[in-house]
């Protein structure tokens, strides 16, 4: 029991942060699956969702602010795709990626401008920010509800992709972009839908993440974004279950490393793990077989 109460906090923090990475990672993996684009701006959309909540909560009650955050984030994700990626659909892949870096730059700098460069305190959300005790470990409720919530959302997403028409279109587009276009799939609405789903999940992720780690700064999305992306690659980019499992593995191992006292290397370990996986299984744990589109 003593051992448990000493080590459980690391594990719980790991699972919870892993769940939050998972929600961001899904956005990366879906976009990559269809567009072969590393959407560098995704982490910043996550940050923007946090900022919207900070500002919304000062003028309206939380039960209005939460839906607003979800809607605004989805709209931003949608607009980013329309403005910055869609015009470049025929351009070389490098151009689109640069555009993503540009958007990331722009979002960060706008956030810097709006906040004046100061960390903003995330509001305490009722219920999920409450402190509770599990097996003698004190923590926030959000730590405990993150994993089931993630699993629920992922199950819903998988249902959507497997059972609905738009889901079928998405699968088709990620298998073969050009052919699916020829088959009459409205590729632009499929892509928009991908961004909408990705942004929605990032917004949910931000609600959970910032309830735990309450400082919102312009660059706060960069590290979780990068790690979520690593998780997506790790699990096999393009695969949703892969991204989720990858995210949990990364979240947990990162906290175990910290628990062992190797705090300097907690970030580096994530990347080392990634490189090892890439070398031995270049397409990630659950990646599709080499479907070379380059």
């Amino acid at each position, binding site marked *: 029991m003593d051992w448990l109460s000493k080590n459980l906090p690391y594990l719980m923090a790991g699972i919870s942060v892993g769940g939050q990475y998972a929600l961001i990672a899904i956005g990366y993996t879906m976009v990559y699956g269809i567009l072969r684009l590393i959407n560098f701006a995704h982490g910043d959309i996550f940050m923007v969702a946090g900022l919207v909540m900070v500002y919304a909560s000062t003028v309206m009650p939380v039960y209005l602010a939460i839906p607003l955050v979800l809607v605004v984030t989805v709209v931003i994700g949608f607009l980013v795709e329309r403005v910055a990626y869609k015009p470049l659909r025929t351009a070389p892949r490098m151009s689109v990626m*640069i555009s993503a870096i540009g958007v990331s730059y722009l979002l960060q700098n706008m956030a810097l401008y709006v906040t004046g460069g100061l960390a903003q305190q995330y509001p305490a959300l009722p219920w999920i920010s409450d402190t509770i005790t599990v097996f003698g470990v004190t923590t926030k409720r959000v730590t405990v509800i993150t994993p089931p919530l993630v699993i629920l959302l992922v199950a819903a997403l998988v249902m959507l992709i497997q059972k609905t028409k738009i889901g079928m279109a998405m699968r088709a587009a990620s298998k073969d972009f050009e052919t699916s276009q020829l088959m009459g799939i409205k590729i632009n609405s499929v892509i928009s839908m991908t961004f909408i789903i990705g942004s929605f999940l990032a917004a949910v992720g931000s609600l959970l993440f910032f309830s735990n780690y309450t400082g919102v700064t312009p660059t706060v999305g960069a590290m979780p974004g990068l790690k979520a992306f690593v998780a997506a690659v790790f699990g096999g980019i393009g695969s949703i279950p892969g991204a989720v499992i990858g995210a949990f593995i990364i979240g947990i191992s990162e906290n175990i490393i910290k628990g062992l006292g190797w705090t300097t290397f907690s970030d580096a370990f994530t990347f080392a793990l990634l490189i090892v996986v890439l070398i031995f299984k270049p397409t990630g744990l659950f990646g599709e077989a080499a479907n070379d589109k380059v």
Partner: protein
Amino acid sequence: MKKQTEAIISVALIAALLAVLFILERTIPSTSMLFTVLKKGAIYALVAVSMNLLNGFTGLFSLGQAGFMLVGAYTYGVLTIPVDQRPNVYMYYDGGMIQFALHPIAAIIIAGIIAGIFAYLIGLPVLRLKSDYLAIATLGFAEIIRAVFQWDKLGPLTNGSNLLRNYPSYKSVLFYFIAAGVCIALIVMLINSTYGRAFKAIRDDEVAAEAMGINLAHHKRIAFVVSSFFAGISGALLAMYQTSIQASMFKSAMTYEILLIVVIGGIGSITGSCISSFLFIILSEWLLRFLDSELVIGGFKVPLLRSGFRKVVFSIIIMIIVLFFRQGIMGTKEFSVRRIFNRITGRSRKSSEGRNGR
């Protein structure tokens, strides 16, 4: 236009540029922002060209540039801090383990070599990866390098996560131009050699290049190591320019910045990289700075202007370039005496392009 005349004119232009810089240095106070941005521009031009060698000419999508710059900058700092300054700098590590100091020029070259060795070792596993996976793996290695250099067990060597400073540095803007210029000239020579042609063949079609008898692994490794060598040198120059360095500066954001410069200049254009790095630095560090402070014109307070606005405007400019000028400033073309000459004399472009071989 004869090749010889072209060469003479090119040399004359470079000499004229250096002369102008020389005169400027003697007429404008040395503290002027002009020199600051010119120095930084020259350094970024070098690292942008080195990245272009990989991404633009060999088609290897690598995002490890900041990591190799870090190696170069640290090598330079560690090797050149005067012995009597070491107890000050390595104050938490009893003066550090290295108790000698090299001449700056020697240290710069060693900085490049060490970065090259790192690149060779990292290249062994990662160069087998393709496109985006290579990008992510190199990005990951850059982050790992950063963590290792901050490790306090290596403190006696790297000063842990603390600043390295008090090392010698050249103040003259001429030094930065000559150093960066020589390195860029070497890269151009490489690109115009047999190796360069092999690089381009790999970029255009790996399978075809291999079929033509090009040793893929060998050539990729050479491009990667050479690019990192020059990234290391530019890291050393950056250390010199900044007068103090720290591992935490070399984040992935730095690599993204360099990549932006390369793309804005035109992927596959050396002169494009140079021009855009100067534009990038001059705009962001100097000309746009007025946007950060409040301005009142005739009693009217210009709206929006406050700290941070410069960066917003700057990122909007970048987005416009990325969206509407996809080829960048130069595309894959080069700025050369011959082109200008042809433009002036009105010779048909086709014939000169053909002979230029580009």
